[in-house]
């Protein structure tokens, strides 16, 4: 009893007593993935006064800025596919611009990683590029995957101790996903973990054949998280392939649609949990895996939470992978319930079919959620109650050609986009604001939640979802909000379409 109390207190101290973090040095601010800043100059009391500080519209290349900036030592770095900019974080003035034209999927580039004076980012042709942070000169580049098979890089690496952890994008060529650990000095690959096991190894029995396994998907689209104490890397993996055709890959298809924990030094799998076993409707599990230190049913625990593409909220013990909680945050008609591991059981009757299957789902996607240790709430922009017809087309479309989708989906009703505040201990929706946008979320020690809603950039009170500030600059945010402090001033930055917007409190 007493021990528990002391431990719980320690957890509390850990969560709140760290020095205010003035930088935003990585995609999600830190390696926990929670997107929570300790800054509180801008807070619930004064946020209504937020005013534009500067804006930056890249002169070349960008029609939509989907990249989330990072800020290190007063310099803000951000990307669009093939391009990186360094901008003065206080004034919005360009310092340098780097361009490397390439051919490959350029649907998005999410940003850069920073490590010891160097920047790292991925390209449409799946190269990892290293630049000098001070002048943007290229130091080296190295391919991470073969663009000829549809691989590309949209996410920057995640810095873990002295390594860069690289995830990959692209699944058009029925490839498999992977994570690589790369030496930040040389670009040398130190280990590789693939999203499917080797044939004959544990997990391969969840595939019907080696051929199916080798083209099984599991793309590592979205950045993961890291626990330095356990030395474990956590990552969510994408859907199996072909996407809608599950008949050619009977079994649960490990480790697609999974949350995996890997040893950071060796890349060896330590545990896995599968949010969508044998997925047949693109319910990938790549969404943020957010680390939560707190209490669960009275016990202090190290946990991991994911609001998944499949409409379920999962809470796991991140040391063991043991399942603590599975709750659904929206209606669906494809799950028969949970298995004893806490994973949903897909209803085979809801698989795509030649005649069309009426499917209801709810979920979220790559836009990042946030967890606030101050409220114990997990915030996510979700889409509730989407209806569609899913078809298994095998050869019945485009003149007999198959494709990597393996089927088609006819949208019927788009569902209700909403911002949800989930109690991490129960999964209950504590509050909900309608008309959410597909944008990331930031929470701060100032009691605020920044995101985009109804085409406005907004700041809400974390505790109840009440809007305390909003501005309409012409559309929803196209990236995730960040905050940092330079020269004693706290800034909040978000992008809308082709421009970065920065906000501060007036003098």
């Amino acid at each position, binding site marked *: 009893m007493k021990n528990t109390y002391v431990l719980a207190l320690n957890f509390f101290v850990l969560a709140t007593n760290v020095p205010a973090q003035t930088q935003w040095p990585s995609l999600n601010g830190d390696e926990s993935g929670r997107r929570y800043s300790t800054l509180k100059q801008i807070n619930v009391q004064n946020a209504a006064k937020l005013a534009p500080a500067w804006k930056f519209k890249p002169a070349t290349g960008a029609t939509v800025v989907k990249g989330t900036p990072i800020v290190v030592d007063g310099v803000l770095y951000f990307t669009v596919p093939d391009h990186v900019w360094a901008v003065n974080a206080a004034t919005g003035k360009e310092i340098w611009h780097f361009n490397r034209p390439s051919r490959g999927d350029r649907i998005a580039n999410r940003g850069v990683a920073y490590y010891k004076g160097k920047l790292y980012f991925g390209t449409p042709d799946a190269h990892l590029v290293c630049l000098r942070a001070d002048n943007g000169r290229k130091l080296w580049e190295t391919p991470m995957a073969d663009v000829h098979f549809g691989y590309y890089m949209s996410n920057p690496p995640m810095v873990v101790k002295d390594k860069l952890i690289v995830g990959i994008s692209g699944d058009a060529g029925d490839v498999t996903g992977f994570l690589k650990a790369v030496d930040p000095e040389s670009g040398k690959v130190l280990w590789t973990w693939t999203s499917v096991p080797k044939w004959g190894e544990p997990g391969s029995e969840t595939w019907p054949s080696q051929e199916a396994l080798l083209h099984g998907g599991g793309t590592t689209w979205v950045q993961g998280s890291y626990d330095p104490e356990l030395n474990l890397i956590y990552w969510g993996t994408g859907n199996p392939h072909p996407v809608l055709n599950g008949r050619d890959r009977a079994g649960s298809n490990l480790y697609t649609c999974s949350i995996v924990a890997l040893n950071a030094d060796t890349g060896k799998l330590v545990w896995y949990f599968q949010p969508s076993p044998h997925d047949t409707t693109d319910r990938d599990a790549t969404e943020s895996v957010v680390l939560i230190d707190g209490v669960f049913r009275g016990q202090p625990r190290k946990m991991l939470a994911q609001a998944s593409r499949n409409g379920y909220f999962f809470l796991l013990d991140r040391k063991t992978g043991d399942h603590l909680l599975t709750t659904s945050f929206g209606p669906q008609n494809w799950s028969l319930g949970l298995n004893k591991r806490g994973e949903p059981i897909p209803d085979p009757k809801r698989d795509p079919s030649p005649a069309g299957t009426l499917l209801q789902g709810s979920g979220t*996607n790559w836009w990042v959620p946030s967890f606030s240790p101050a409220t114990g709430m997990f915030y996510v922009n979700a889409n509730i109650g989407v*209806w569609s017809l899913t078809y298994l087309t095998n050869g019945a479309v485009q003149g007999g*050609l198959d494709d990597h989708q393996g089927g088609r989906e006819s949208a019927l009703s788009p569902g209700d986009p909403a911002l949800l505040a989930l109690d991490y201990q129960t999964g209950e929706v504590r509050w909900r604001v309608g008309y959410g946008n597909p944008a990331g979320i930031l929470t701060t020690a100032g009691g605020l939640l920044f995101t985009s809603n109804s085409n406005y950039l907004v700041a809400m009170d974390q505790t109840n979802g009440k809007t305390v500030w909003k501005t309409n600059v012409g559309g929803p945010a196209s990236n995730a909000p960040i905050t940092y402090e330079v020269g004693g001033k706290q800034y909040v930055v978000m992008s809308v379409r082709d421009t970065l917007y920065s906000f501060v409190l007036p003098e």
Partner: protein
Amino acid sequence: MKIRLAVQLCIGVVGLAAPLAAQGSRWWSWPADPDPQAVERGRPEFVRSCGRCHADNLTGTAKGPNLIRTARLRKDADGTAVAAVVRAGIPARTAGGSAADGKAMPSFQLADEAMSDLIAYMRWAVQKYDRVSPGAPPDDYPVERLLTGNAAAGKAFFNGAGGCNACHSPTGDLAGIAKKYPPVFLQARFLMPRPTKPRTADVTLPSGEKVSGELKVLNTYDVTLVSGGKTLTWPAEQVKVDVHDPLAPHRALLPKYKDDDVHNMFAYLWTLQ
């Protein structure tokens, strides 16, 4: 991870446009995309000579491997690597432990022009495979695939549990509906029609005054109506809004369909030729 949810959530955000295309391109290629006319010239040759082993769509059969996934085709920038295999053929391997063991590929002597047309077709098939996005099936989706239900049961649902006859008649508004749309389109339409009338709303102002009109915007912050030719906007938190959505009955029906109802209903509507 396709972009289904995003498309529904995004409001008018365009992915890419001209400025980027000038500097890089959306897709990797060979480096040029195949010429459509060459593709059409190459298609019959592939179907005649190669399809029986590799399938007309290149995805492979028991007699020959999937060519969509082969590096020999994808990484063959000038076409010479594929041409070399086609001209030389491949003798049967024996104990290589591969799926191709014991299977041979004959050689084919094609003129340069015919070879480049053949390769254009193969490249086109790879691009089709990779670049497809998961939207609705095309209009020519075969009706036979959809006709798995029972028309009589569909009719019973129409007049019974589905309650469709409260608003529709097979000899009135739905007469000839099967001729109006391609079959796969009809199936989506009866589940979720396109409205021909807009959403309307009654807005009650703080004063108690009521304004009715066509609903243009409704979100967390704004309500906009067009009423009597005027566009009126209010902060959402200050007014009460009653929405009239002509599709509300159809939305309410979606959770009521049991597995067979959809297919039975389609079979019935298909009789309304």
